[in-house]
């Protein structure tokens, strides 16, 4: 589903990724494990289309993504700091992708209510993100990503700032959501325990190269 062929990325003289090749089959939950500054987030940005590779190819479902804009890719992302829209309620955040694709009315309400129930956020539907805890914000981010119906979900250290108890609860929830929706996931972390708990396969990255 996600295929990287000898992908490299440099910013000026600084080489961030070198000859990275990996293959994540459809429906797999792949982990990218490595220390800070290893190039993990940049790799996700290349798959998402937020950055263009300096060399190599990124393919999703067999299609070269070189000329495909982020909004046209079958990809969504859960960000480390949630990146929720602060002016919208939880309901509107989750509905954002549905409305952006032209859906209106009862179908949006049905789908959002279903996702909020799945993530245990029903009672916060009309709250703004600034009154939610870190864990609740991350649940909204999960629900919002699932609402996009993207086949590929990228996770950029989404549990990084949470305490251990909350992390375990969200790992269990994420596993449940993955079993139910069967999306293909590429999840970046520097936490080995998190990687082992979630991943079907683990890629190790260090200094911009897979090891």
């Amino acid at each position, binding site marked *: 589903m996600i295929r990287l062929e000898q992908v490299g990325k440099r910013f000026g003289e600084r080489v961030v990724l070198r000859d990275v090749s990996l293959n994540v089959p459809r429906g797999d939950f792949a982990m990218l494990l490595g220390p800070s500054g290893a190039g993990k987030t940049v790799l996700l940005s290349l798959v*998402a289309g937020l950055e263009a590779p300096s060399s190599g190819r990124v393919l999703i479902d067999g299609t070269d993504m070189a000329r495909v804009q982020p909004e046209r890719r079958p990809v*969504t992302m859960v960000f480390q700091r949630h990146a929720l829209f602060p*002016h919208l309620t939880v309901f509107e955040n989750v509905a954002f992708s549905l409305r952006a694709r032209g859906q209106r009315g009862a179908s949006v309400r049905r789908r959002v209510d279903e996702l909020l129930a799945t993530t245990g956020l029903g009672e916060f539907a009309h709250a703004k993100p600034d009154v939610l805890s870190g864990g609740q914000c991350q649940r909204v981010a999960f629900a919002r990503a699932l609402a996009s119906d993207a086949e590929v979900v990228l996770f950029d250290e989404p549990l990084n700032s949470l305490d251990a108890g909350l992390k375990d609860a969200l790992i269990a929830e994420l596993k449940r959501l993955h079993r139910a929706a069967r999306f293909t996931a590429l999840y970046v972390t520097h936490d080995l325990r998190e990687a082992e708990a979630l991943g079907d396969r683990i890629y190790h990255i260090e200094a911009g190269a897979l090891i």
Partner: protein
Amino acid sequence: MNPFFKLLCAAMTVLLALFVAVTLGNVFVASPLETARAFGELSPVLKISLETSLTAALLAMLLGTPVAYVLARRSFPGKAAVETLLDLPVALPPMVAGLALLVLVSPASPTGRVLSALGIRVIFTKPGIVLAQLFVALPFYIRAVRSAVAAIPPSIPAAAALLRATEAYTFFRVILPLSREGVISGFAMCWTRALGEFGATAMVAGCIPGVTETLPIAIYTRATSGDLASAGAAACCLALVSFATLVALRLAFCKEDARRKA
């Protein structure tokens, strides 16, 4: 804080506030009765000023918002030159701006010929006032909105794109609402600058009573002809509008802050 330094700061604050208040108090040069009479006579001038300055501010909003967005979110060759050029009217003496605009729209210039062919008259008309006000005030709007858009974390528009939103949808649904404070304060700054514009307006539109006479022009013509009551009343109008705008902005942003803290 050292007590002497504390006292010095307090004294400086009081002195400066007094200086501004006493200076502004001098616009009430005539008796209240005379000022009230002059207010009545000034209503056509006030109407022209409000009409033209609000039109200029709305045009600045319409034209300046996309420009501010592009400057805040895009990199392109020559961006610094474009930014400097768009900022130039702030530093340019208004009379220079007025002369440049006058030459631009004069019947002898290519632009003037096109406008004449379309039946649009700019010199000595209200559109001339709007043009001069827009030229001088637009950078204030662009600066405010550009800063507001640039302050939005890059992950927010990236998240919107990865939720299948087009750039236009993201602009209207995410970027504009999140830049609201910049848009409001930019509009207010642009409007008050347009309302107080004198030099460029006088060059392009002249001062035809009842047609192109704005408040700043009325202050000048009436003060130089010795009618200090009228000049004072016009100055009061401008000062009151500026004061009311500042108070409204402070109240709006205080409310917003309180809502966020709550």
